[in-house]
């Protein structure tokens, strides 16, 4: 009988359900996908994030002096889908739970991640190559870390030298 009385007393004990947000902290779920975070020291400039970005929020611009690339992610175009973070091989891009992105219209082009990622140098010939941070060496370059740091040309030469050495050894062992 009178089931609403039960509901009424329960709601009275529970207190208001309104969040105190502008006057107090807002509750954010831990899995909430907010704006992306970029760590330039982990980036290898592979460009997969730009490739999978549906709204085209990510740009990789080569710098004028050829010493690196400028990494730009415009938050005003990002739809927080998280594909860039999903496909990033080194974890340089991650999604945070930060949603405090409100800004004035005059600042709309400054609401972005703008980082400079410098190129590495090949230890043998000194050519400019994409950076090889420890994160990617651990992932795909752990078998030959020294060879992994070379530029593509030096790497081919190194592999050819190695193959010739192995070939000569087998020739000598089984003439």
């Amino acid at each position, binding site marked *: 009988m009178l089931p609403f009385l039960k509901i009424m007393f329960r709601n009275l004990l529970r207190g208001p359900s309104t969040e105190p947000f502008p006057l107090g902290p807002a509750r954010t779920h831990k899995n909430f996908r907010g704006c992306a975070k970029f760590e330039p020291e982990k980036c290898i400039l592979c460009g997969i994030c730009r490739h999978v970005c549906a709204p085209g929020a990510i740009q990789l611009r080569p710098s004028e002096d050829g010493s690196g690339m400028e990494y730009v992610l*415009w938050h005003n*175009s990002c739809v927080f889908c998280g594909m860039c973070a999903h496909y990033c091989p080194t974890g340089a891009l991650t999604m945070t739970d930060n949603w405090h992105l409100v800004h004035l219209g005059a600042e709309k082009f400054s609401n972005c991640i703008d980082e400079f990622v410098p190129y590495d140098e090949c230890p043998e010939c000194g050519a400019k190559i994409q950076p090889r941070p420890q994160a990617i060496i651990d992932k795909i370059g752990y078998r030959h870390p020294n060879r992994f740091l070379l530029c593509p040309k030096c790497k081919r030469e190194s592999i050819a030298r190695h193959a010739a050495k192995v070939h000569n050894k087998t020739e000598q062992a089984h003439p």
Partner: protein
Amino acid sequence: MLNLINKLAGRSPWIYRINAGSCNGCDVEMATAALIPRYDVERLGCKYCGSPRHADVVLISGPLTLRVRDKVLRVYDEIPHPKVTVAVGVCPVSGGCFRDGYSVGANIDHYIPLDVIVPGCPPRPQAIIEGVLKAVGVWRARLEEGLCSHS
């Protein structure tokens, strides 16, 4: 007298929504910000109104499609002067996923000046409330300026 009215009006901004070809995601979040007790933008003195002639703060969502462009501009011109535009979502600023689409003429920015931007696809209701509060700050500053320039 006008001074007093402006002082009182500044405490209760009326909000008007324009859907400029949005996918309805941002509109749902805007409705959520007002209608659900958990967020409830009305406790801050804001009120959604049905007529553009009563509005102070305009919430625009959507990338301004070609089909709806002239109608949006007509409605926007009906809003009385010290108005503040809030872009809800990324579409009005950059076009979002619809940028360079066949039915998206240009960014809203070419037609309507955006004063406050709430990025997100869609933004959460709390973010919209944050944007509305920021817009109210801009609007109050304009009310005080408008006294000199319009009277």
